[in-house]
């Protein structure tokens, strides 16, 4: 699905590096630098930059607390917030001028491999979080209403991350395609409308991905009395 990415060069002879991977490296480097700058300059009375970051983190904290409750959101905050920040920046990277024109820099989430990777990560995360609540509880969940449900519930575990991945990929890829088609129709002015819309949609998709992940997490770690 989608076009096949061009391999730029091979790392250690086995790992194929594509444009998406390069963009992800750039995003990771950017985030690391921002983290280091903020961490080294922590002050009692915050400046403009620190204030901005603090507001963002506080917003995310409140968001996950509303969905998961205080205890669980504190426990899993690092993973969920990192997922959100990575996806939103990866989505927005497609709007930067020049990205997507060459093979060297491409929006990562417009490729199915990347979103399926995120889906696999979510899958592993959900299983581990479920197992941490106790093996008995984890196994019992698959037989929860009646034992006939077992195959469906096992299938459901795989469908959840797959649908997350397909949703993210479809939205971002579809958006890029529509912008490109509009550009071919009328090059000046019209694509801007779609790009303004995609500013909204990119944030919404990142929100939906993390929101659904945390709802699944809430389901998995729920302990009934």
């Amino acid at each position, binding site marked *: *699905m*989608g*076009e096949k990415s061009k391999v730029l060069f091979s790392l250690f002879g086995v790992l194929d590096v594509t444009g998406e991977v390069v963009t992800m490296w750039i995003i990771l480097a950017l985030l690391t630098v921002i983290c280091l700058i903020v961490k080294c300059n922590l002050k009692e009375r915050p400046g403009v930059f620190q204030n901005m970051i603090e507001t963002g983190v506080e917003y995310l904290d409140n968001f996950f607390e*509303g*969905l998961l409750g205080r205890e669980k959101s504190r426990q899993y905050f690092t993973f969920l917030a990192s997922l959100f920040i990575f996806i939103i920046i990866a989505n927005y990277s497609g709007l930067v001028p020049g990205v997507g024109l060459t093979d060297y820099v491409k929006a990562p989430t417009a490729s199915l491999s990347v979103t399926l990777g995120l889906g696999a990560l979510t899958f592993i995360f959900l299983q581990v979080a479920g197992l941490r609540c106790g093996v008995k509880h984890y196994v019992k969940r698959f037989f929860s209403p009646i034992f006939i449900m077992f195959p469906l519930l096992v299938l459901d575990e795989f469908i959840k991350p797959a*649908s997350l991945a*397909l*949703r993210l*990929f*479809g*939205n971002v*890829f*579809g958006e890029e*395609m529509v912008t490109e088609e509009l550009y071919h129709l009328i090059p000046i002015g019209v694509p801007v409308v779609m790009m303004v819309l995609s500013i909204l949609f990119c944030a*919404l998709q990142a*929100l*939906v991905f993390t*929101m*659904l992940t945390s*709802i699944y997490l809430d389901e998995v770690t729920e302990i009934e009395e």
Partner: protein
Amino acid sequence: MNSAIIAIAAAAAIAISTLGPAIAQGMTAKSAMESIARQPDAAKDIRSTLIISLALMEALTIYGLLIAFMLVAKV
């Protein structure tokens, strides 16, 4: 001849898969707005539930869109 059929199939895939979710999303948004108007205090909870349900419906359209893209690639 063959590619013409594929093109029509791609158009039909996205067009038909848009119809159902569009109606469903309209109904969801309508009842969410009604309940916000009735109880403005609960607006925050209603909004997050609304976004989740809209996203789940959106997924159906997206599947149709992906199939349409796959078909278009074969024309």
